[in-house]
C-alpha cells in the first residue's frame, strides 16, 4: 500500500465575508438583520438591557426567575395555550440572561418567524406574572440550582467569582444567583425588574433568508407598547490583582476528581488588547495543542481536558484556567499548570504556536458561523459592545496580522501567575496537604 507521503498545500483561499447586515428603525425600535439566502430556519432575538448586572444585591437571580416566568402565561393566554401556540409553530422560547443583556430568542421555519416573534414579544412584554406562579417558579429555580450545585464545578465557579469580585457588588455572586439569593427573590422584585427593564424597546436581531421575512412586521410585533430610552452603561470595574496567590478549598468528600478554577481579573471587552490577549490565551489554553492541554492531558494524562481563556464583558474581565483532574494527581496538576502560565507570561509565544492560533481564530469565523443562530449571536456582540457592521472582517484581519511581539506583550501584561486565586473543589481530606505549597489555604463553605 502507498499512502501519499507529502502533506498537500492549501488551495486558493475563498474570500471571507460576514453576511450583509441590514438595519431598519421602525415602530420605535431598531432591527438588525443578516441575510442568509437558502436557510430554511430563521432566528430572531430580542436583545434587552435587562442583564443580571441590573439586579439588586442580595436578590441575585431575579432576572433568571423572570426569564423562567415568561412562559407561565401572558395577559392574553394561559401557560398551556401559550406552549401549544408557540410549539405549534415548531418554535421554542429561549430566554437567557448574561452580564450585559437579557435575550429572548426564537427559531422557526422562516415563513413562521413572524408568528413566533409575536409570541416571543407577548411573553417578554406582557407576561402574566401571577404572584402564585412567580413564587412557584422561584422555588423550582432554587431546586434546580441545588441540582446544578450538586455537580462538580458550580461551587468552584462561585468561590472564584466571590473572591475576584469581592468589592464589586452584584459581580460577586454567580450570574444566575445562588440558592440563597434566589430564595430571597420576591414577587415584587420580579415585577419591578420587569417594569424597569423589559418594557424598553431594545434591539431585534433577525437572521435567515430575509426574502421570506418582513422586517417591518417583526418590528411592529417586537416593539409594540414599549417606551423608555437607552440607559448609559456604567464604566469598567478595573483590574485589581493581588500580589500573592492563594488557595480556596471547596470540600467535595469522596470526589474522584478535583475541579480546578484558577483565575485573576483582566480588562473588559473594550480593551485595545482584545486580539493579542485572545491569541495569547489560545496558545496557552485555547487550542487542543495548547501548552496546557498538551502538558496536562497529552503528556501527563491527568485530565480529559483543560482550558485557559479570558472572559470579557462590558464592565469586567477575568482570566481563568478550568479543568477536572484525577484526585491523586491534584498537586502535580496544579504545579504544572502554574508553570505553564508563568512560562507564557515570562517568555511569550513562538511563531509556530501563534501561527496555529491566528489561523484557528480566523478560520472559526467562517467554520463556526454557518447557522442563523450563530450569526444572531455575532450580531448581539456587535450591539452589546458597540462594534461596527464590518467588525468581523476587521477582526479576521487583526487575527491574521498579529505579531509574536504583540501577543507576547499581551501575555506579559495580562497574565498574573503571582496573583492567581486557586480554587480547588475536591476531597479536602485527601488533597489539602499537597495544596499548601501554592499559597495560604482558606476553606470555603458553599
Amino acid at each position, binding site marked *: 500500500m502507498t499512502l501519499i507521503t507529502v502533506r498537500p498545500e492549501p488551495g486558493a483561499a475563498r474570500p471571507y465575508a460576514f453576511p450583509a447586515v441590514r438595519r431598519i428603525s421602525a415602530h420605535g425600535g431598531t432591527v438588525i438583520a443578516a441575510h442568509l439566502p437558502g436557510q430554511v430556519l430563521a432566528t430572531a432575538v430580542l436583545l434587552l438591557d435587562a442583564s443580571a448586572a441590573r439586579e439588586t444585591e442580595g436578590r441575585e437571580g431575579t432576572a433568571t426567575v423572570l426569564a423562567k416566568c415568561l412562559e407561565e402565561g401572558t395577559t392574553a393566554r394561559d401557560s398551556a395555550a401559550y406552549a401549544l401556540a408557540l410549539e405549534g409553530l415548531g418554535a421554542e422560547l429561549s430566554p437567557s440572561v448574561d452580564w450585559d443583556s437579557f435575550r429572548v430568542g426564537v427559531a422557526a421555519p422562516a415563513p413562521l418567524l413572524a408568528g413566533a416573534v409575536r409570541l416571543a414579544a407577548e411573553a417578554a412584554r406582557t407576561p402574566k406574572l401571577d404572584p402564585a406562579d412567580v413564587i412557584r417558579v422561584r422555588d423550582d429555580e432554587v431546586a434546580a440550582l441545588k441540582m446544578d450545585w450538586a455537580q462538580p464545578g458550580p461551587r468552584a465557579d462561585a468561590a472564584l467569582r466571590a473572591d475576584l469580585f469581592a468589592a464589586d457588588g452584584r459581580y460577586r455572586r454567580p450570574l444566575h444567583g445562588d440558592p440563597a439569593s434566589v430564595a430571597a427573590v420576591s414577587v415584587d422584585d420580579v415585577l419591578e425588574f420587569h417594569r424597569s427593564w423589559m418594557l424598553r424597546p431594545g434591539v431585534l436581531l433577525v437572521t435567515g433568508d430575509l426574502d421570506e421575512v418582513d422586517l417591518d412586521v417583526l418590528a411592529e410585533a417586537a416593539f409594540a407598547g414599549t417606551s423608555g430610552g437607552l440607559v448609559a452603561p456604567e464604566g469598567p470595574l478595573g483590574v485589581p490583582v493581588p500580589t500573592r496567590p492563594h488557595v480556596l478549598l471547596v470540600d467535595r468528600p469522596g470526589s474522584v476528581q478535583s475541579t480546578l478554577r484558577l483565575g485573576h481579573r483582566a480588562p473588559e471587552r473594550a480593551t485595545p488588547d482584545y486580539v493579542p490577549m485572545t491569541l495569547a490565551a489560545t496558545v496557552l489554553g485555547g487550542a487542543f*495543542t495548547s501548552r496546557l492541554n498538551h502538558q496536562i492531558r497529552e503528556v501527563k*494524562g491527568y485530565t480529559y481536558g483543560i482550558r485557559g481563556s479570558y472572559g470579557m464583558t462590558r464592565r469586567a474581565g477575568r482570566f481563568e484556567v478550568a479543568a477536572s483532574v484525577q484526585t491523586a494527581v491534584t498537586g502535580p496538576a496544579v504545579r504544572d499548570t502554574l508553570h505553564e502560565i508563568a512560562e507564557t507570561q515570562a517568555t511569550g509565544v513562538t511563531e509556530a504556536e501563534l501561527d496555529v492560533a491566528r489561523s484557528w481564530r480566523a478560520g*472559526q469565523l467562517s467554520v463556526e458561523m454557518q447557522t442563523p443562530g450563530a450569526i444572531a449571536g455575532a450580531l448581539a456582540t456587535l450591539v452589546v459592545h458597540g462594534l461596527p457592521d464590518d467588525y468581523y472582517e476587521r477582526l479576521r484581519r487583526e487575527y491574521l496580522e498579529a505579531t509574536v511581539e504583540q501577543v507576547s506583550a499581551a501575555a506579559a501584561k495580562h497574565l498574573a501567575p503571582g496573583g492567581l486565586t486557586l480554587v480547588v473543589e475536591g476531597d479536602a481530606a485527601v488533597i489539602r496537604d499537597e495544596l499548601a505549597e501554592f499559597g495560604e489555604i482558606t476553606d470555603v463553605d458553599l
Partner: protein
Amino acid sequence: MGRVTSPSAPVATTGYPWPIESTRLANGLRVVVSEDRTSPVVCVNLWYDVGSRHEPAGQTGFAHLFEHLMFEGSQHVRKTEHMRLVQGNGGSLNATTNPDRTNYFETMPAEHLELALWLEADRMGGLVPALTQETLDNQREVVKNERRQRYDNVPYGDAWLRLLPLLYPQGHPYHHATIGSMEDLNAAGLDTFKAFHQQYYAPNNAVLTVTGDVAADEVFRLAEKYFGAIAAVTGIPAAPDGSLPIPATAPVRETVTAAVPAPRLYLSHRTYPFGTPGYDAITVLATVLGNGRGSRLYQRLADGKRIAQPDYIGSYGVDLAHAPAPLIITATAKDGVDVATLEAGLAEVVQSLADEPVTDDELNRAKALLTTAWWRGVATVGGRADLLGRYATQFGDPAAAGSRLPRWLAVTADDLVAAARETLSPESRVTLTYLPEESA
C-alpha cells in the same frame, strides 16, 4: 468508478434538498458528496462501521479508545500534529463512538479540503506503524479521566451505564457501555490494539462524506488519490446478531442509593430499531410525551400535578439501528414528593399514550418541533455530512436521509397508539430509581 446521482427534490417533499452524489472506490471505500456553496467551508466525515457492539467479551472500550488513538499520529503525521494541522488551518474537529459506529469529522475552510483528506487517509491506512506503548498508556489515562468526568463524578452520571445491561441481556451487542471496562483496557497489549485497527479501519468498512464548498468530481478525484491505495480487508467479522423480541417480556427494576440531590426515575423500554416505521412512530411519540412545555409529561407532572421538577423532565429515543432502540423517560421529584408518587404519575402519563388518543394539536405540535429540529440538524455542513454518512453506512443509501422528515410527518395518531400499546406496557419496563443517601 460507478456513479449514482440523486437529483435534489423540493423542500416540501424531502428533508434533504441538496444534491447527493456517490461512488465507490475499487478498495470498497464509499464516497458521498453534497455540494453547497453557501459558506466557504467543507466538512470531511468518516463513518467506520465499528462500535462497541463489535467488541467481544474482554475487549470492551476498545472502539472508543481507538477514537482517541486516531489523533495521536500515523505514518506521516507526527503525534499531536493532526490537531495542530486542523486547528492551525482554521478547522473544527471531533470524533464520537457509540454502540453502532465510530465517526471522525472536521469542518475546514474550503481551501484545506485536501489536507483533511490526507490526514484521514493517513490514519486509516497508516496508524499501526505509528502506534507506540507510550501513546497507548497515555490515552488509557485520558480515557479513565473521561470516565471519571462524565460518569463517575456526576450525580446520576452512570444512569446510561446502568440502563444498558437492564435493557439488553448478557451477550447482546448493546449490553455493555461504549466507555467500556477500565480492566479490559488495562489488560490488553499493544499488539491487540494494532490488530483491532487492522481489522476494522478498512476502506471497505467506511464511508467518506464531504459536504460544502466543493464539486463532487473534485472530491472523487482526491478520494482516489489519497485513499485509493489503501488495501481492502477481507473477512471483517460482523457484530453479534442484535435481534430481540419486541417488547421485552419481563419488567426489570434497579434502585441506586447515591450522592444525588433528589430522587430521580428513568423508565425505559426497548422499542424498534432506528430507521424502521415503528421507530419513526416512537420518535414522534417521544416528542408528544416529553419534548417541550406542551408535552404530556410537562403539562401533567411539572405543571398539572406539580410533582416533577420542570427542568428535569422529558423523554427521548436513542437512535440505535442494529437492535430495538431504547426510549428513555425521566423525571426528578420536587421537594417533598416521594418517589412512589412520582413513579405512579409517570406510569399514568405513559399509559395515557395507549389509552387516550393523541389529539391533532398534540400531533401537530410534535411534528412542528421535529421539523425545526431536523432543519437545525442540517443547517451546517457538519450536520449534513454526518447524516449522509449514517444513511450510507446503516441503510446503504445516503439519499434515504431525505425521507426521514417526510416519514415523521406521515405518522398518524393511530400509529402512535399502536406503538405505545406494543412497546410501553409496564410488563416490558426497565425502572431505574436514584435515591439520595440520607433518605436510605
